[in-house]
Every structure is written in C-alpha cells, then in structure tokens.
C-alpha cells in the first residue's frame, strides 16, 4: 500500500524506480503540423530543430548548438581570430511596447547572440517582411529605432532586404537580423562548457521584457510601470571577459522561454545539472505581481537585455564585480551552481524551503513576445 503513494511523501526512501530513458515521441512528420508551441522556445521547438532542421543541415557549426556559430575564415590567419555569425527572426506583437519596439529589439537580439559567443559584434544585416497596408509612419518609427540602437551599439546595418506580403499573409512587420563579429583568439565560450561546481550568474532582474510586452496585449491589458529591458550586452560581455580571462564558460541571453529554458539548454548541452536558489534570483515586485495575476512563472518569461553566465567558481566574484560595475549589470546576482546530474535537471531550492525541478518551457506560455 505504501509504495502506491510513495510520490506523496519524501522520506523513508522506498527503493526509487530507475529513471526511464529520456525518450520523447518523435515528430509525426507525415501528419503533424506546426503549432504555436513549436515557436515558443521550449522543448517542442528544440525537438523541431533537432529532428527536422539539424537532421537536414547537419554540419559541425550547427552542431555547436549555440545562438551564434563560430566559423573559420579560410582566407585569413586563424591566429587573428574567428568569425561569429548569428541570426534571429523577430515577430513580436505588439510591435511597440513600453521600453522599446521591434526595431531596437531586432538589433539588440542579434548583437547579443553574437556577443554571447564572446565575440565583438561588427555588422548587421536586416531582412524586412512587411504586410501590405502597414503605415509608413510606423515603419519609419521602427526603422529609426533600429538605426538608433545600431548606432548606440556601434554595429551598423550594412545590407538589407524588403519584401511585401499581402494583407492577411503577414503581421505588420517581421524583421530577421543577422550579425557577424570577430572572436578574439583564445576565447572559447559555449553552452557546452559548463562544469559541475561552476557558478551561475544572472546580470539583473528577470521577466521585465515579457511583462512589458504582455501589458500591451489587448486581451490582457494591464497597467504597469515595467519597461522592457531590451539592450545590447556586448560591452557588458567585454567587461566580464576582461575581469577574468578564461573563466567565463557559458554566456547566454535568456530570451524566449526565459531563464528556465535557457538554463535547461545549457544543462543539456554540457551534460550537467544545476541547482538554483530561488531567493537569489532577482525579480522585480511588479513582475512578480503580474505573473501572479496572469498565472505565469517569471522563470519562463522572456528577457531582452539580460544574460546568464556560467563561470569558474574561483572567478565568480571577480566576474560578478565587473558585472555590477557595468550599467547593464548593476543587479547582477549569483543564482546557483552547476551540479553533476545524468538527467540534466535544473533544480531549484524554493524560497519556501522545498525543492523542485525547473523544467523546459512546455507548450506556449506566452505568444510572440520576442
């Protein structure tokens, strides 16, 4: 009788069942269709990428599995550095939100993906897919915001493309940006490099962007003074790398799917577990409240100006200090550590004193907020 309920009590260790193989049903390519979950940045998205995209394109660069690819430039001396390339499509709705718009977002998002490899972002390209009927005044506002973000980041938009689709075949404007940058020799940062014992840092409070965007959704409409955190993080990265050369193992911006999904990605890529301290994770009270009201978990809400870093334990304080000295890292915090875990679980000691798994986002928590 007792074993029938052993999930309900914690102790008196009944022989736990061996874990089942981490099997998930493969995509039903023959009958399946894309649904919103495939775009939410969680497990369904990861599965789609693995079983459909990676299976087709398979190459050493894509297999790096990071948000930017580190490349060799055959004509150049590799001792001078390597090229990094990253791309992101931006399909956010609404296009304008407190603290930003799709324009600056599309610059920051890609600058950050390049920066998360440790590279210095140099150039951007932009592909616009505009819906017939889109007001020119809105387009101008977006493009000007993009230009301002690009100037501020020092990363020019050097080439672009514009397509127009019929009304009802698009949604205002989609912007796909691609960035290239140069990775200095000796820097090697990747989601694959986390090791047990490493420290997990976050550069500031989480969930601001997603809450700011959701507050503008017609169906949810709530008032908040929260603004999107959208920002280019490459100078913060430079400061961190300078503070402790060689100690930063992983950098990633927790965008779609939020902190939880990003850390799960890293855990899987590196083959490790993580243990987070809920009490240490910075969340603004209004973000907490909005999540409470909407039934969301801030760990899964998108950020556009935050990064997580996995650093060697001995350098953690130095890196943290460098982050806090940077305007975009003032609220940086140490939020957990990397553990040995063949199941690659990200766990969290709750503020309440319990412990739980912080899993990948599943399904679609928040539609199209980045």
């Amino acid at each position, binding site marked *: 009788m007792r074993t029938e309920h052993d999930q309900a009590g914690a102790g008196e260790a009944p022989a736990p069942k061996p874990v089942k193989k981490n099997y998930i049903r493969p995509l039903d390519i023959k009958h399946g269709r894309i649904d919103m979950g495939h775009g939410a940045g969680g497990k369904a998205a990861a599965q789609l990428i693995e079983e459909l995209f990676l299976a087709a394109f398979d190459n050493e660069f894509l297999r790096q599995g990071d948000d930017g690819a580190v490349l060799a430039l055959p004509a150049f001396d590799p001792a001078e550095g390597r090229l990094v390339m990253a791309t992101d499509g931006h399909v956010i709705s609404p296009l304008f939100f407190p603290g930003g718009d799709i324009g600056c977002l599309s610059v920051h998002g890609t600058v950050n993906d390049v920066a998360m490899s440790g590279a210095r972002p140099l150039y951007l390209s932009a592909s616009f897919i505009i819906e017939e009927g889109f007001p020119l005044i809105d387009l101008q506002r977006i493009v000007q915001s993009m230009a301002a973000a690009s100037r501020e980041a020092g990363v020019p938009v050097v080439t672009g493309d514009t397509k127009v689709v019929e009304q009802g075949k698009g949604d205002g404007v989609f912007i796909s940006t691609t960035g290239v940058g140069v990775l200095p020799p000796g820097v090697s940062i990747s989601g694959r490099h986390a090791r047990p014992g490493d420290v997990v840092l976050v550069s500031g409070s989480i969930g601001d962007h997603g809450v700011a965007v959701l507050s503008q959704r017609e169906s*949810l*409409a*709530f*008032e*908040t*003074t929260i603004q999107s955190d959208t920002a280019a993080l490459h100078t913060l990265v430079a400061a961190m790398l300078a503070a402790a050369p060689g100690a930063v193992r992983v950098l990633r911006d927790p965008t779609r799917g939020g902190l939880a999904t990003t850390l799960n990605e890293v855990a899987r890529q590196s083959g490790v577990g993580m243990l987070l301290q809920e009490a240490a994770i910075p969340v603004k*009270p*209004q973000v*907490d*409240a*909005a999540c*409470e*009201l909407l039934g969301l978990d801030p760990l899964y809400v998108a950020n556009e100006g935050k990064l997580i870093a996995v650093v060697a334990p001995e350098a953690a304080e130095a890196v943290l200090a460098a982050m806090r000295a940077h305007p975009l890292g003032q609220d940086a915090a140490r939020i957990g550590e990397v553990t040995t875990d063949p199941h690659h679980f990200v766990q969290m000691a709750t503020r309440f004193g319990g412990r739980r798994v912080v899993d990948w986002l599943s399904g679609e928590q928040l539609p199209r907020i980045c």
Partner: protein
Amino acid sequence: MVDLGGIRKPISIALVPEAEVGDYVIVHVGHAIGMIDPEEAEKTLALFAEMQAMTGAEVQS
C-alpha cells in the same frame, strides 16, 4: 481596477458589488469572486506566529 504590487488591471466586480476602493478581493478569471477580510487574515497569520512560538519553544527545550 485591481492593483497587485503595482500592476493595475480592470476586473469585474459584478459578483462582489460591495467591494470598495481599498478593499482586497480574490480574483479568478478576471472577476472578483470574494473579498478578503483583513481581520480574519490577521488571525490566521497570528495562528502561524503562535505555531512559530510553540515550535521555537520546543526547539529550545
């Protein structure tokens, strides 16, 4: 209009028309379905605190 930690959102109070500005309500699917009685809330918290005292006492013993 409810305010939760600085987040303000319009909700219907058709089900608790007695709610006034400043009252605390319980919100479910966009509707206030009941009010929070501050006195009772304090009592419950006091109960917890009492427990703390008790447990604390035991731990000391």
